[in-house]
């Protein structure tokens, strides 16, 4: 069984360019998460989908960031007019179940290898 895959693995963009990052979650996983990891830091939450519904986008740093998951499977994170501060590794994770679970319930998140974005 394949894990979470992301493409491209590396992306170099000139400042002002638009980029699109793809995530293929584990087949059948309901939930999908995007995280941003700056150099030397831990991952920080960007946005979360349950199937095709975007339930939380509170972590998106600006309106230049947009994510979609139109068919409840593959997701794309788009960054418009990239800036140097957007340089980071973008991680995607998926988990089997969705929704707020009862206290103590746990749905493991499986992470992809990430896309390293460098904005020049």
């Amino acid at each position, binding site marked *: 069984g394949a894990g979470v895959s992301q493409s491209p693995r590396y992306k170099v963009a000139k400042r002002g360019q638009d980029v699109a990052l793809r995530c293929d979650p584990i087949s059948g996983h309901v*939930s999908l998460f995007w995280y941003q990891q700056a150099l030397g830091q831990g991952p*920080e939450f960007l946005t979360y989908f349950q199937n095709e519904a975007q339930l939380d986008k509170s972590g998106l740093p600006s309106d230049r960031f947009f994510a979609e998951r139109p068919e409840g499977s593959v997701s794309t994170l788009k960054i418009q007019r990239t800036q140097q501060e957007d340089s980071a590794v973008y991680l995607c994770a998926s988990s089997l179940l969705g929704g707020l679970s009862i206290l103590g319930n746990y749905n493991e998140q499986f992470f992809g290898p990430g896309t390293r974005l460098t904005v020049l």
Partner: protein
Amino acid sequence: SQQGEEDPQALSIQEGENATMNCSYKTSINNLQWYRQNSGRGLVHLILIRSNEREKHSGRLRVTLDTSKKSSSLLITASRAADTASYFCATPLAGNTPLVFGKGTRLSVIA
């Protein structure tokens, strides 16, 4: 913002020694998780400890949780060069909602 704070930020030990990393967090949790990240395998889940547990073991890993102090520790026994990686603690805000990670401890195990 990041909930967890690991310490030390970096740790260098000889192969065969034990490595201990600590994590402190700010708000109430229902579980705490430890992850490992290296360039070869990305971010990998290691172990989860629930809020009503005090200690948990998995192979060479031992995790403790002290909810009164809002802290956790990860002990790796008999370390190997392959344990060289960054280690993060993470807590879900609630249920299946996103994980909040600390800044991580960079562990180097020297053969």
